[in-house]
């Protein structure tokens, strides 16, 4: 093992050059390792140099320290560079390269159904705004589905032609609004919920209608909730769901359970509002019905309509999925063709 009996700055620098050259010229990985042991090893030159630093005159000590660091860093770098070169070369001569273009064997992920994707997105968006999720049964009674929602007894939606009646006053809910009734009956205000779920109407199935479909409704009851809050909340949701640049507009409408009632359109995400096939050239797409909760609905659930106000809204999940993903026919959502489902993975 080399030993340094005396040391000066020039000597350290010379050893540095020697070590770097030794590493660069080493022909094998083992030869490189020998260089490392000789210069940097526990019993090599580096510890001796470090130990020798204290013997330098105080004026020279700083420069000596820098030279010692250069010794270590330069030789380390030279060794690593040489090892990389040697190992790369070894791989290249080991035989034909592995065909990394062969198919991988880890199985792929599955996919959520587009309806689930939309519901999941909506739940997350509304959850950020403080809405909790409430769910209720598909089989409802007429009171929760109609009467508590201020729907007159002769309203056409009660008719045999629009509702699946199961007998004994039971029916398949035509909307998820009865969940709002259930929540208000069991929770004092304030309330801030969304209610995703399956609904049923006796519609003849075609490209845009299905007798079974999903809705997301929302309800927010608190002190001083106003139509302006409804506009702000729905607009924020639309922008989160359909893109930050979509415009939102509101038109007066009628629903038995809200007063005032509005319909909500968003500016077509395909053409940006200029007019195209998707928005039927209007630049706008109807997406939700909403309004301020009718005081008579509050009366049915025992809320004080003077002290509390609230808004409610509802929208069709399949419709959002069709608009968002460009699905042309609602029936495709229920055909469960694996090739279709894979597009949403």
């Amino acid at each position: 093992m080399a030993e340094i009996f005396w040391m000066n700055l020039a000597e350290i620098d010379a050893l540095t050059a020697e070590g770097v050259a030794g590493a660069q010229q080493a022909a094998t990985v083992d030869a490189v390792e020998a260089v490392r042991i000789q210069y940097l090893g526990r019993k090599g030159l580096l510890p001796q140099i470090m130990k020798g630093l204290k013997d330098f005159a105080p004026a020279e000590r700083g420069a000596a320290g820098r030279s010692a660091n250069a010794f270590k860093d330069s030789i380390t770098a030279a060794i690593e560079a040489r090892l990389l070169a040697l190992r790369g070369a070894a791989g290249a001569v080991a035989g034909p390269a592995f065909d990394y273009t062969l198919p991988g064997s880890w199985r792929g992920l599955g996919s959520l159904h587009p309806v689930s994707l939309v519901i999941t997105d909506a739940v997350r968006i509304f959850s950020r705004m403080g809405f909790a999720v409430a769910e209720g049964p598909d089989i409802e009674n007429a009171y929760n589905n109609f009467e508590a929602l201020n729907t007159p007894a002769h309203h056409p939606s009660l008719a045999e032609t629009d509702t699946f009646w199961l007998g004994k006053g039971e029916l398949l809910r035509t909307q998820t609004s009865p969940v709002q009734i259930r929540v208000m009956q069991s929770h004092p205000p304030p309330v801030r919920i969304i209610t995703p779920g399956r609904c049923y109407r006796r519609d003849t199935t075609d490209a845009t209608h299905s007798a079974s479909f999903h809705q997301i409704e929302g309800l927010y009851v608190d002190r001083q909730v106003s139509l302006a809050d409804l506009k702000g909340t729905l607009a924020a949701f639309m922008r989160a769901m359909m893109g930050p640049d979509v415009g939102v507009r509101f038109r007066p409408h009628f629903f038995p359970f809200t007063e005032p009632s509005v319909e909500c359109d968003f500016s077509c995400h395909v053409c940006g509002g200029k007019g195209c096939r998707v928005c039927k050239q209007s630049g706008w797409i109807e997406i939700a019905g909403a309004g301020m909760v009718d005081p008579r609905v509050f009366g049915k659930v025992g809320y004080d309509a003077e002290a509390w106000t609230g808004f409610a809204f509802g929208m069709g999940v399949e419709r959002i999925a069709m608009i968002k993903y460009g699905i042309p026919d609602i029936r495709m959502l229920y055909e469960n063709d694996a090739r279709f489902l894979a597009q949403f993975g």
Partner: protein
Amino acid sequence: MKIPYSWLKEFVDVEATPEELAERLTFSGVEVEGIHRLGDGLGDLIVGEIVRFEKHPAADRLRLCTVHDGRGELQVVCGASNFEVGDKAAFAPVGATLPGGMAITKRKVRGIESHGMLCAEDELGLSEGHGGILLVEREVPAGQSLATALGLPEVVFELEITWNRPDCLSVIGMAREVAALYGKSLRLPDVAYAEDSRAAADLAKVRIDDAARCPRYTGRVLSGLAVGPSPGWMQHRLKFCGVRPISNIVDVTNYVMLECGQPLHAFDLTRVAGAQIHIRCAQAGEKLKTLDGVERALAPDMLVIADAQEPLAVAGIMGGGGSEISESTREVLLESASFDAPGTRRTSVALGLASESSHRFERGVDPELADWASRRAAALLLQTAGGAAAGGVIDVYPGRAELRRITCRFARVQALLGVAIAADAICNIFAGLELIVESRTDAACVVRIPSFRRDLEIEADLIEEVARMHGLDRVPEATPHATLIQNVDDARTWAVMQLRERLTGLGLREILNYSFMSERHVNQLGGEDAARRLVIPNPVSIDHAVMRPALLPQMLLTLGHNMSRQVANADFFEIGRIFWRDEAGQACEAERLSLGLMGRVGQGALDGRRSVSPAEMFLSLKGLLTALCRAQSDAGLRMAPATHASMEPGWCVGLWLGDVALGTAGLLRRGLREEWRIAEPVGVAELHVQPLLAAPRRRSFAPLATYPSITHDVAMIVAEDVQHENILAVIRKAGPTELTDVRLFDIFRGVAVGVGRKSMAYSLVYQSGARTLTDAEANTFDVGIRQALRQELQAEIREG
């Protein structure tokens, strides 16, 4: 509802373009669904008279017509046959261009020159109709512009009137809205007419049984009428609104209904027995042949208009053939009445019979309107059919309603809308809508609601009027001043969302099926107790007649449908509700999870051509279930042999999480999959969702082993009926506490092993938490285990 713009303009001065008006209406609550410009591009067309015609010599179905265009006679070939000599028809002369862009030239049709074209409605862009050429009244002179003859051009608005606004189901109702929007006043037509010396009250009698069902009935008597076609302008407007012209008397009743919203009916008074009108419920067994020619059995809760003997009309819905206006009608009883909305609706649904009249009554017609409408119709009848009107009116009005008064607090408007609107502006909006502000303080006003706005019941209704007239665009988008709410607990929803995500992480695709299915498929695939099925009494189709009693049947159908579309590899899950009736007949529902695996489950790409064995499929399914349950629950998954109608015997297991039944899993019965031409095994399972959520994993730290482990192997030959679980149990029982893991790594069968026997090889992992084990210690452990295997399972241990 369709409204011609020219008609609207009779009642309100509005100059807006159709597009501007449509925008204003849409944003004030009446959605304009379409603007139809009728008669655009008809400038070149004229009325031609068909002077004579003969058969085309070369084509049986063509006619060779001589058409007079006002200047001279032209020879025209025509394919239609809906005309006679002397008829006047739409004629496009040579040089004309049709609305569709077609240019008319002189051309030969089957060898004969045609100097122009007689046109059908679709060729003129007026309708889809192609039932022959368009004829106009014979009185129109030949050569006149066709557009003038048809009352064109016209702009027709197509409106969606919401359920709460029956007052808008008329031209005047809409004119009132437009007047309010544009700050104009409504101008109503003059309804005065001359009366003769007879008194209507002497000529007919009216009796109402139930004021709630019929709050008002008015009748006027007109005599000496001449039935004939109504004037062209009236026919044009009826057609623009989608109503077919019939005769002057019927057309007047329809015209007035479209104009003001009051349905009217004209009875031939000579055919009203006893000249008595009795508004009563139908009696059991009574029948009526309605104007559409259908004989209808009437039920006792149906309101009818009867004479002294029998029903003449179903009240508010449709008249009967017996008292119908005919060519011989001279004397008419003009009915203008009110019938209640719920009753009309019930009867209409029960009879499956709807009309323009029932459409209005089931939404509500203002009883105050009846007399005005009757006067208007009487005046028009005298104008169009001649004759004389008896003096006065028979007006039975037992159901007169009080006018409603509603207080509107100005502060409440701001609270509900979130925008400040001045009290003056609020009161002006009410005045514009003909809502009368009776009194007013700084804080509120009292509004008297006119009879035609029965939809306005409470303060919120008035605030809605303010919102829609003020403009929703002037309500800001605000961020709610939200309080933190102790809301409903939605942990379950989030847990199901996580379950979905885990299943997709395990490689499955989510499917979604309808909640209902066909009885046939339930019978074929479900096998559940038929008495417990939840059958839909009024299904849309037989394919959707039963609420699904399980998810598996639809899973099988989904796999099958995919296979028939050449999708041979598919791993699906569905989370959804199933439905049944319990012993008490109560409808029940519960959430289930179904799994379906088909094809190369879990195999790498290069295994693709190798077929899947039943064991491989079963173990894939088991591995999936095990991974899922381990992630979902601290309760261990257990299995035991089971049977299921859809599953292959011997390849079906019941599943438990701890002590809670989880469901059934196995391979699809061979016969079922072969129906869908699925050649290889299919793995299926149906699980309850609730147990998967009931015992979520409690996560906690345990120290990691610090001393190295020793792994020894043991291989043995055992009888075929010795199960893996038996071997595991024996090893675990005989092994020391240092035995931390036992892994099966090989099963082998063959001649060397012997018939009815198999070789099983396990890795035994020994590890101590206190020190490093020696090989000698591990050997000692092995001895005990081998001993136990020999004794308890008659295993033949393979040494070395």
